[in-house]
C-alpha cells in the first residue's frame, strides 16, 4: 500500500491528473443516484431550458435535466465500454499470443477467422448480427467485444511474433517450459506496453461504435442515458454554434485523455527509461 502511494507520488502531473479524473468518473458513476438532483428519465421542465435556475446545465430536448442525464450517462456508458473493452482484450490477446507461440495451423486457423471477421465492414457486421439476434445490452457487449478483439488479435500476434523469435524465448522452449509459462512469463510482459497503449484508444472506439450503432437505431435502449446518443440527439445544434452537444462529447474526450495520460505513464515505467 505504502509502495503504491509512493509510486503515485512520483508520478508526473499528467498521470496524477489522469488518475484524479478516472477516480472522479468512477465516483460519479457509482454514486449517480445520490449525486443527481432528479431521476434519470424524469421529465422535470420544458425542453431546452437555459443554464441555471434549478437546472445547472439546462434541460434536453424532452425537458429532462441535462446534468442528471450526464451523470447517469457516465454510469451506463463507462460501464458498458469498459466491460466490452476488457472482454475484447482478453479474447484478442490470448488468441493472439497463442497464434504466435504455437504458430503452424493454429496460427493459420485463428488468423483466417480474424481475417474474415475484419474483412467485413464492422458497422455492417454489427448491423447484421444485432438485427438478427436482437439489441439487448448483453448482445451488444458480446458482438462489439468480438469485433474489437480482432483488432487486438492482430496487434497481439504481431508483437508476440517479434518476441517468440527472441533468444530468451528460444532458451525457455529448450528448457522445456510449457506453452502457458512462455505466454504468461515471456510473451505477456514484453508485449504489454503496446497492448496497454492500444487499450487506451480501444475503449474510446467502443464508445464511438455504440454511438455509430445508434445512428442505425441499434444502440442502447432508451430512455437509458448514454453519452453517444446524447451527442447524436443534439448534434445539429452545433452547426448553429450552440454548444449543448459539446458537453457529452467533452465528457468522453476528458476521460479518453485521462486514461491515456495514465497509459503514457505506464509505458514510460515499462520502458525502463530512467529520465
Amino acid at each position: 500500500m505504502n509502495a503504491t502511494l509512493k509510486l503515485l507520488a512520483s508520478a508526473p502531473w499528467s498521470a496524477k491528473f489522469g488518475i484524479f479524473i478516472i477516480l472522479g468518473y468512477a465516483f460519479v458513476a457509482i454514486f449517480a443516484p445520490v449525486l443527481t438532483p432528479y431521476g434519470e428519465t424524469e421529465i422535470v421542465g420544458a425542453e431546452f431550458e437555459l443554464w441555471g435556475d434549478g437546472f445547472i446545465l439546462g434541460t434536453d430536448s424532452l425537458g429532462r435535466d441535462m446534468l442528471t442525464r450526464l451523470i447517469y450517462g457516465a454510469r451506463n456508458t463507462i460501464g458498458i465500454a469498459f466491460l466490452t473493452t476488457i472482454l475484447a482484450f482478453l479474447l484478442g490477446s490470448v488468441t493472439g499470443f497463442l497464434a504466435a507461440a504455437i504458430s503452424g495451423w493454429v496460427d493459420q486457423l485463428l488468423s483466417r477467422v480474424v481475417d474474415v471477421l475484419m474483412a467485413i465492414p464492422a458497422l455492417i457486421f454489427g448491423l447484421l448480427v444485432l438485427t438478427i439476434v436482437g439489441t439487448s445490452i448483453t448482445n451488444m457487449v458480446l458482438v462489439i467485444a468480438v469485433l474489437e478483439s480482432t483488432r487486438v488479435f492482430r496487434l497481439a500476434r504481431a508483437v508476440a511474433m517479434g518476441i517468440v523469435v527472441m533468444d530468451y524465448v528460444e532458451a525457455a522452449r529448450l528448457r522445456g517450459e510449457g506453452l502457458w509459462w512462455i505466454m504468461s512469463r515471456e510473451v505477456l510482459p514484453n508485449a504489454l506496453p503496446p497492448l496497454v497503449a492500444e487499450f487506451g484508444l480501444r475503449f474510446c472506439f467502443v464508445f464511438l461504435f455504440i454511438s455509430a450503432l445508434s445512428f442505425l437505431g441499434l444502440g442502447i435502449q432508451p430512455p437509458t442515458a448514454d453519452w453517444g446518443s446524447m451527442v447524436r440527439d443534439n448534434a445539429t445544434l452545433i452547426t448553429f454554434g450552440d454548444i449543448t452537444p459539446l458537453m457529452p462529447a467533452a465528457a468522453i474526450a476528458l476521460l479518453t485523455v485521462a486514461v491515456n495520460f495514465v497509459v503514457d505513464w505506464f509505458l514510460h515505467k515499462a520502458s525502463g527509461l530512467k529520465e
Partner: protein
Amino acid sequence: MKSDNKLSSAMNTDVSRRGFLGGTAALGVTAASTSALMGKKAYAAKKGGHLRAGIAHGSTTDSLDPATYENGFSLALDYTLFNHLGEVDHTGTVKPELAESWEASPDAKTWSFKLRQGVEFHNGKTLEASDVIASIEYHMGEDTKSAAKSLLKQVKSMKADGKNEVVIELEAGNADFPYVISDYHIAIKPAKDGKIDPTEGIGTGPYALENYEPGVRLMANKNKNYFKSDRGHFDQVELITIIDLAARQNALTTGEIDMMDRADLKTVHLLKRQKGINVMETVGYKHYTMPMRTDTAPFDSNDLRLALKYSLDREELVKKILRGHGVVGNDHPISPTNQYHAEGLAQRMYDPDKAKFHFKKAGMEGTTIQLSAADAAFPGAVDAAVLYKEHAAKAGIDIEVVREPNDGYWSNVWMKKGWCACYWGGRPTEDWMFTTAYAAGADWNDTFWKHDRFNELLLAARAELDSDKRRTMYYEMQEIVSNDGGVVVPMFANYVFAATDKILPSEQMAGNWELDGSKFAERWSFA
C-alpha cells in the same frame, strides 16, 4: 368540392368549399382563389435558372419504376418528370391535369376521362388514350408489384373511347375516384404495343430526364413543349439526396442548394434567424399514429385501449416532438384540413384518473405494456414513446419502450408487434383514408380492427351523394374510431421546409405532400 370537375353537376351535389377554407385559414394557411395558381400569373415568376433542391430521401436502390415509388425523392422525381390524370391543388381539391375534364355516371360507377389534346411526351409522341390505359394497367393484375395495386382493385374494366377519352368502370360507386386515379404512382408514360416501359424516364412533365443516379442526384432539363405554358419555369432542375439533417441545412445556409425539405424541428428556430433563408410550413394530412393490434391480447380489450388513449399528454408531444409545428390528434386519422373533419367531436384529453379507471377495468393492473418504436416510424418516435412512458406512469401504467432497429421496421415491427409507432402521409379524402387503413380486412388495417357499424357506414358514405348526409356519417365514423378504434393518434404534423430568398414559391401551396404537393419544380421559380 369539385367545383370544376363535372362530377358536382352530374351528381347534383352541392359541396361548398367554404367550411374547409375557413378551417385552413384558421390554421395559418391562407387559401384564396384558385386563379392565382391555375390561371394567369398573379405575381412575377422569373424564367430560367438552375434549381438545386436538397431532398431528405433517396436510396441507391431506388428506380424510375412507378410501381415502387415510396419516398420523398420518388415523389419529387415523379412530379418533375411526369403528369397524372388529375392534380391536387392548394385547396385540397383534385383538378384535371392530363385529363381535360371528367364525368361520372349518376351512380359514380362509370367514369369517363376526356384527355387534353396535343400533349407531347418528351420523346415527341402524342398522348393518347392507349397510353393512359397502359399506364394504369401496369399497376393492375395478378403479377404487379405496384403499391397502387389495392387502390385499383375497384377498377372493373377500362376502355378507350376514341383517341382522347378513357372510360373506366368500377365495381362499386366511388365519388372520390378522380383522387384515386391521380395517385402519384399512376404516372402517365408512353405505351408501346399496349405496355409501358416502367424503367424509362419519359413522361409529359415539365422537365425531361437528363440523368439519374439513384441515391445521389437527378438532373432534368426544361420541357420546351410543356402543355402548361405558365408552369415549369426553371431551365434545369437538380434533385440531390441529402439524408443527413445537418448536412442539408448547412448546404442551404452555405448556398450549395437553393431549397430543401424536412427542416430539423429542433433547430428550425435557429434556421429562421439565418439571413436569406425562408422557412415555410404547410398543413396537410400527415399524422403520426401508434396502432395496437386489436385482434390480440391485451389490445383486444377496449378498456385497455381507452386507458392508453387517456394516459397520453398530446399537447406535450406536439410541443416537444413537433416543437409546435402541428396540431393534436383525436385518435382518428381525419385531419383538420379534411373536408369532413369532425369539429364537434370532443378532444381527448390527458386524464390519468380515467386512464387508471379503465386500466383497472381491463384487469391489467400491475402488468407492463410494450411499445415498439424506431425513428424510422417518424422522426422523434423514440422520444415520443419515452414521453408516453412518463405520462402513463402518472396513471400507474407501466409502458416499456422497445427501441427497434430502423432497418426493416416496416416489415418486422409494423403490423407485427402488438403496439408500435407508425406514420401516415394521410389522404385527401375520408373514404380513401378509412378504406386504406380502417376497413375490415384492408391490406393496411394496421390495428386489425373490425367494427360492423363503421364498415356499414363506410360503404354507405362512399355511395352517398348528399353532402350533409355524408358529413353526418363521416362524423360518426370518426367518433367510432376515436372511442373504439385501436389507434392512438397523438398529432398531425405540419410540413416544414426552407428555401433561400432567391426562390419564389407558389403564392398558395398545396398541402397534400411536402414542398407544395411535391410539385415545386413545376410551380416555383427564381424570384
